[in-house]
């Protein structure tokens, strides 16, 4: 499994975190993810996720002029988005801890003894 594939499952949470740091737009989100070492094979895959988040009311958007062309869509978290980000943070900490333990091998002996 590549990093890009693993990122897919947690992309929504990562986007929530990026948008949570201040109003931003599509390309900039990809750049910021990249700065954290989260690179994607298909950068366009953020847009279907952003669409869904918008429909679920996690983000709100506003169109503003950009240096490139006529309009650019900026994203901001809603109150529901903030809540979801907190929930994601909790789930991620549990998950990361559990996977970390599994990979370190701690706890393995106890499981065997219980049998």
């Amino acid at each position, binding site marked *: 499994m590549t990093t*890009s594939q693993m990122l897919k499952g947690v992309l929504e949470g990562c986007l929530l975190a990026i948008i949570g740091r201040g109003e931003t737009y*599509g390309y900039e989100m990809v750049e910021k993810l990249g700065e954290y070492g989260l690179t994607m094979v*298909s*950068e*366009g895959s953020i*847009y*279907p996720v952003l*669409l869904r988040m918008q429909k679920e009311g996690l983000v709100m958007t506003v169109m503003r002029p950009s240096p*490139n062309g006529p309009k*650019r869509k900026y994203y901001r978290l809603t109150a529901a988005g903030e809540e979801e980000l907190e929930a994601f943070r909790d789930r991620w900490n549990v998950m990361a801890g559990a996977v970390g333990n599994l990979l370190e091998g701690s706890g393995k002996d106890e499981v065997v003894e219980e049998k």
Partner: protein
Amino acid sequence: MKLSKRSEEFIANVRMYLMTSGKNEREIDEVAEELEDHLAELERRGESVDRITGDSPKEYLASLEQEMDNDYGGWLKYVPAFLLSFAAFAAMGPAIRGMFSLNLLQLIGYPVVGAIVIVLYRAMFRKMAVGQWSNKKLFFAGGGLSMLSVLLFVGVLLASSFIMDPFYTAGRTGNLVVILVSAAAFAAAAMMMGSWLLITIPVALFLPEWLILSMPLGLGDEAKMMMVAIIPYIAVALVVTAQLFYEKRKINHA
């Protein structure tokens, strides 16, 4: 900032693909604008559209399709135009030949053929959007499909007239009325769709036939029938491919 030809084509393909999946027009515009902005940023850094789609444009389009709302209501507004032009296509040819009549098999066969043709065109547009088609491929697919649809209509017309008797046969006045009403129907449908195709295709299909049949060319009936059987279809194929090239040029020069 102007996008490269390849990027412009990609955006056009995204629009085409999402439109043929019956997505909401406003949502399509929003997504297309975001992708345009993203592509402009990529190109400024010397990157290409591959960064957006990754390995598989097909998978990327499918993922967009999945997240977007269907809006079949948007398509419903085309139904009256479709019915009008459809009926006019079926009626005008026989009326020009002075033998407009109706039988039961036609009443059933034409809608069935119409549905088949729509499904085929939709499939072609989607395939075209997913794979980057060459002009040659576009020519053969577009030309071939338009010929096939005309042949299907003629097939129903011929087969039904061999099998059963009509319940209505038009006289001289009746045929003239059918021609005029059909022409008006084409014009109305063209206005509703905002497309010249509903004027240019009927003209290509029916004008040569009318000219050949009504002009004293000094040709035998057999020679005339041969010309009538071939020339309109070539004319239609030319009109359709010319339109497709024109659309592509418009995209490239936008």
